[in-house]
């Protein structure tokens, strides 16, 4: 279970991007975060594994408070959080297998990583997962030879290799065409169920979000203003999520300016 409490993130001296945010994600569910650009979706996701350093508040994953960890403990803790990126972030010049195995870098020794001597059970799991998402035949291909959808599958498998307790996906389908995008969304939904894995997805496509998620969170200007089942999201609430600056923040911004 992921528990976010009173999370604040402020870049430099500007107004906070995340304003005292509370959120908890339990068990196996696929949760989508929607909101316009600049609402703080990406920052929220990156605060969880501290790719972005939170300003204050706490983030607890199954009993571990991530915000207080030192560098070494943070590295160990990050193994428990899988992440999938919008631009895939694969190592283009390495093979698909090396990319997939890079998900294990937090577990294996640096020497094993450098010499590519991966443990037998990791290789077995890699082939199982690649088979599951349909990219096993590409194991020896270079990552940049694959199509967008295939590359995102490599990204998903890399994250799953960590045996994560939660999967974060930062706009995983934004660089893909509509058809591939739906395939990746349904893959994420199915994997969440098969592996009992909670998945948080930042997404711009509201139709997809409604179709594939168990729960939708709407963000605007660093606050959560909607949190319910997809069916409960109606036009009025959509307008509110994607509307301009809310009145309370408008005053705040006026005070700064």
């Amino acid at each position, binding site marked *: 279970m992921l528990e976010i409490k009173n999370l604040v993130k402020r870049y430099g001296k500007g107004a906070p991007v995340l304003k005292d945010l509370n959120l908890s994600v339990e068990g196996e569910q696929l949760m989508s975060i929607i909101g316009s650009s600049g609402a703080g979706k990406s920052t929220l996701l990156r605060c969880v594994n501290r790719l972005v350093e939170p300003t204050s508040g706490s983030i607890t994953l199954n009993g571990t408070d991530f915000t207080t960890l030192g560098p070494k403990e943070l590295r*160990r803790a990050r193994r428990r*959080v899988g992440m999938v990126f919008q631009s895939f972030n694969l*190592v*283009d010049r390495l093979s698909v297998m090396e990319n997939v195995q*890079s998900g294990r870098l*937090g577990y294996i020794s640096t020497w094993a*990583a450098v010499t590519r001597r991966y443990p037998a059970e990791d290789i077995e799991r890699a082939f199982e997962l690649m088979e599951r998402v349909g990219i096993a035949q590409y194991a020896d291909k270079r990552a940049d030879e694959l199509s967008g959808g295939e590359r995102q599958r490599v990204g998903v498998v*890399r994250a799953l290799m960590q045996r994560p307790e939660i999967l974060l996906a930062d706009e995983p389908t934004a660089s893909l065409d509509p058809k591939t995008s739906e395939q990746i969304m349904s893959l994420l939904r199915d994997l969440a169920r098969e592996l009992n894995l909670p998945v948080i997805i930042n997404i711009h496509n509201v139709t997809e979000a409604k179709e594939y998620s168990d729960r939708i969170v709407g963000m605007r200007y660093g606050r959560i203003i909607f949190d319910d089942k997809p069916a409960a999201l109606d036009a009025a609430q959509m307008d509110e999520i994607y509307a301009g600056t809310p009145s309370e923040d408008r005053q705040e911004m006026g005070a700064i300016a």
Partner: protein
Amino acid sequence: MTTQTVWRKPPFIKSPAVRWVFYIAVAAYVIGTIATLPIDWERTAQGLTRAQRIFSGAFPPSFERSGLLISGFMESLKIAILATTLGMILSVPLAFMAARNISPKPVYLLGRGTFILARSFHPVIVAIIFVKAVGFGPLAGALTLTVYSIGFVAKLLAERIEEIDFGQVEAMRSVGASFFSTMVYAILPQIMPRLVGLGIYQLDSNLRASAVVGIVGAGGIGATLANAFGRYDYDFALAITMVIVGAILISEAVSGMIRKRMT
């Protein structure tokens, strides 16, 4: 009102007065310099006949002492290979240190400072210092060219590291990889083509430079060439020069071929 139909590219210096003063000043300086240069035309004319003597003495080139030529050339080759290998090994960590996007500020400044120092002297000056320090011979040459290689390779490699796609680094951080694993997986593959290209280019360049630093006593074919000139063996000197040019042409062709295959 009609729409404007004439457009000129804005001049580099906006004010016409400043622009013309600048042009005239440059022209005046160039003319003044040529007029006051101490060129003694009489001596130049004498020199021409001397040059003619040297060139006629150089033909035909003499390969009689080819043993000396080959051993000098092999020494140059060894110097170049040793200096390139050593230079590359030292350049990689230095480049990582000197990349702004992955190094903390003090380490960055230390790395930058090191190769700025290595770059600030021409190889000939470095060679003179090393010849004084470790004596005549190939060791001085190898050390000189190592310093030369570091100044060049580390700088260009550091700039390549600053241009990498940082998303891959972020991905490796997100899986909990150590700093070293992150470098090997996320950064090294991205800079590898540049690293290999620089290595080949540097070998090429070191072979060339080894002929120059040899003249001030740092061993190799340059030393053989300097000796030949010193003894007025112009025909042998021409033979040496031809071998150097030939070797450069061959290495140019080979490195071009390898680089084409790399990308």
